[in-house]
């Protein structure tokens, strides 16, 4: 959605005299930014940037992720958490998670910390509360960074094949890869529907106090856009379900032979073992070397 455009006051004067072009100026950046977000999401989803985890076997990446996601939860030591957070940040950068995710992550973390801090101060908390706050932020941050690093590096095929190789139900693997396939279609369709609302819906009445009108308008359009989006998707999937039946993918998934053939390309290499061993070693080292309270 084009926030900039939705937010622009349209209600000023619908009948601008022909030729008066100086009142407002659209640079086209609003449109460009939507396209950028779309492309950035696609780059993230399809792991087109590479990075150190993208080369590894998906099972190793999932194992690495499990380790990193669990590691921060066994301690209340701030130094350990800080180190784990910094390590996770390093991994995320090395996995090339891209500016969009990093920006959203920073915004989320800082925003959350800020409002909890305000809450704590208003309710008369002291410095121990601040320490607790810092700890939970570090834990969540480390886990989020590890998640981003892992899933940015796994394209949908590798992810679903990795899960299947670890004996997850075939339907789960399929759902993941199909979901990813639908993402670009849904983004485009959502974009078109929101454009439709902007063009055909009630015009913007100005921002209102603290921009409440703008916020209400964005919220309303976003919610209303889901009605057509869901129905269109439901219609689409009717053919998909029939087609999958004719192509040998029933509710039980492919045959065992098919599963073997599909996963035959997965190869566990020395690098994969090394990744896990080094990661475990680092986590253990962090826990043993640094002081615990």
């Amino acid at each position, binding site marked *: 959605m084009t926030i900039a455009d939705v937010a622009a006051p349209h209600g000023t004067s619908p009948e601008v005299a022909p030729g008066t072009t100086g009142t407002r100026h659209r640079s086209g950046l609003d449109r460009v930014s939507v396209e950028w977000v779309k492309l950035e999401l696609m780059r993230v989803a399809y792991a087109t940037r590479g990075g150190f985890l993208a080369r590894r076997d998906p099972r190793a990446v999932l194992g690495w992720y499990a380790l990193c996601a669990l590691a921060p939860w066994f301690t209340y030591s701030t130094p350990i958490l800080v180190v784990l957070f910094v390590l996770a940040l390093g991994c995320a950068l090395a996995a090339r998670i891209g500016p969009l995710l990093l920006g959203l992550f920073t915004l989320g973390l800082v925003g959350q910390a800020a409002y909890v801090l305000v809450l704590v101060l208003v309710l008369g908390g002291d410095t121990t509360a601040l320490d607790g706050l810092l700890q939970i932020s570090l834990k969540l941050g480390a886990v989020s960074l590890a998640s981003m690093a892992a899933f940015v590096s796994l394209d949908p*095929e590798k992810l679903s094949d990795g899960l299947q190789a670890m004996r997850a139900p075939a339907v789960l693997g399929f759902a993941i890869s199909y979901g990813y396939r639908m993402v670009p279609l849904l983004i485009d369709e959502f974009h078109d529907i929101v454009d439709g609302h902007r063009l055909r819906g009630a015009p913007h009445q100005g921002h209102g106090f603290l921009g409440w009108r703008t916020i209400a308008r964005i919220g309303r359009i976003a919610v209303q856009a889901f009605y057509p989006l869901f129905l269109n998707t439901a219609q689409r999937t009717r053919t998909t379900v029939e087609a999958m039946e004719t192509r040998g993918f029933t509710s039980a998934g492919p045959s065992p032979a098919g599963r073997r053939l*599909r996963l035959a390309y997965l190869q566990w290499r020395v690098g994969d073992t090394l990744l896990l061993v080094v990661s475990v070693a680092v986590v253990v080292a962090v826990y043993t070397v640094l002081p615990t309270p």
Partner: protein
Amino acid sequence: MADDRDAAPAVEVRDLTFRYPGAAQDSLHGVDLTIEAGDFVAVVGGNGSGKTTLCKTFNGLVPHFWNGDISGRVKVAGRSTARRTVGEIAHDVGYVFQDFGNQLVRPTVRDDVAFGPLNFGLADWEARTDAALRALEIDDVAGTHTWQLSGGQQHLTALAGALALAPSILVVDEPAAEVDPRRAAAVYEHLTRLNEQGVTVVVIEHHAELIARYARSVVLMDAGRVRWHLPVDEALARTADLAEAHIPAPQVVALAQELVPDVAAGRRRPPLTIEECAAMLRDAGRSEQPGAALLRAPDHPGADGSPAPGSTSGPPAGSDVVARLDGVRYGYRTISGGKHTVLDGFDLTLRAEERIALVGSNGAGKSTLLSLLSGLAVPEAGAVEVAGRDTRSVSAAQLSSQVCYLLQRPEEMFLTDSVRADVAMHPTGRRAPDARELVEQVLDRTRLTDLADRDGRLLSGGQQRRATLAVGLAMRPRLLLLDEPTSSLDLRSRDDVIDMLSALAEHIRCTVVATHDMHLVAEWADRVVVLDQGRVVADTDPATLFASPDVLRRARLVPPQVTQVGHALGMDPLPLSVAETTRRLAPLPTEELV
């Protein structure tokens, strides 16, 4: 492919009756049909005649997936479908759905083609995948994500996915529905090649022209029954039966019936190709009478009274300008980070009272141009001026009272749960004082009053297009932009939309249609702008365009059959409709020559 069962017919249906669960009547009733191995069959029939249901009995989706009430017997390649699963039958019958885009379930082309063989655990899946990709000449896009493909490439991918299982029978539901004529012909060429290699091909098809050119036999379905199954030339001679099923005869057949008495009386087989038709007309002594061009239909303003080609090149008074693009540059970023410039240094002026068709192959810049005109996109350089306002100076929402852009996929235009609410959205949102009357008037004019309370998504294709037109009309635009308004419509709905566009001309100052449909261009437009790689390669009237072979080739356009026949007969200017050709080739009454 078909080894020891060669002798058995490909498909044998005996006394088949089927009713969908919960339906009030049978979809198929007492169907008997035999399709011989190696045949190329076109299944035709009106909407709801049971074509698709019949074809779904071939691959077992009926009754295994749709378990309704069924009686009778279906044998495919000599074996009954009743005791085999859909998956087993898939090795004999490949199926390509009408909305083939939804048949693709994997991210990349190669993955999708390999999906079937891998699911069945076929050890030679890689070889099969490569063979299918090569057979349809899409191996160069094997690594591409399916959402980046054009419609034609998606269709070939779906076809390759079915072929990878090496079926002996291939069923394709409406292969030409969503692609331009060149691409439709390409799909049919591939099907013909497979047919020559021994694959039995069954297509569901509305276009009599494609049936005439490619099919060997025709099955006519009517109200759940097979009315007849005949060789193609006999079938196409039964124009009355076909017209009843909303399959208008190919233009060559219609022409011959109008102008060759033997064909009209049924004593002679109608022509199936341009060459046959032209030869037949020449034999019958039909050539253009001197002066007959003056009798041309006045409903083609591009040629009325002023047949000189370039009549649109002299700009009329500047006050008539509805929109102008001046030195426009526009491009978008690609996923790999590069930049793709679609238009550069682009100039175009749209004037009042023009019906403009924007044609050109996919990626030529048609949709980009429409979105620039609608104000949804603004140019990187240069200026787009609509109704006297620079699109940079007003928001797209403000511009929407002047310009209306109807998207290619109608379901994206249905934002609410009823047609009426969708039509009313713009007038009531802008608090138009006459909103209520306007909505009723528009619904009436588009013949949607009876359907107004239904969700637009549940209407048929033709009704959906009418509903989007109604949405556009209620916005009372000066400039109406339509993207492919006739794609994936059967011919009757298509003619309906063309008629409606013509009827609406008085309410809209200027209409621009981006299209692949040359019938729409011939019958509706008075100005054609041909785009190729972001440049205007021709800006003229339809008759002049169809007389310019280099432009046609460059923009991958195929003129309507009647225009091609006119070309073969040396008519000048080229005719654009059957009625016009008939008028010009008919013997002139003597009194008019005086």
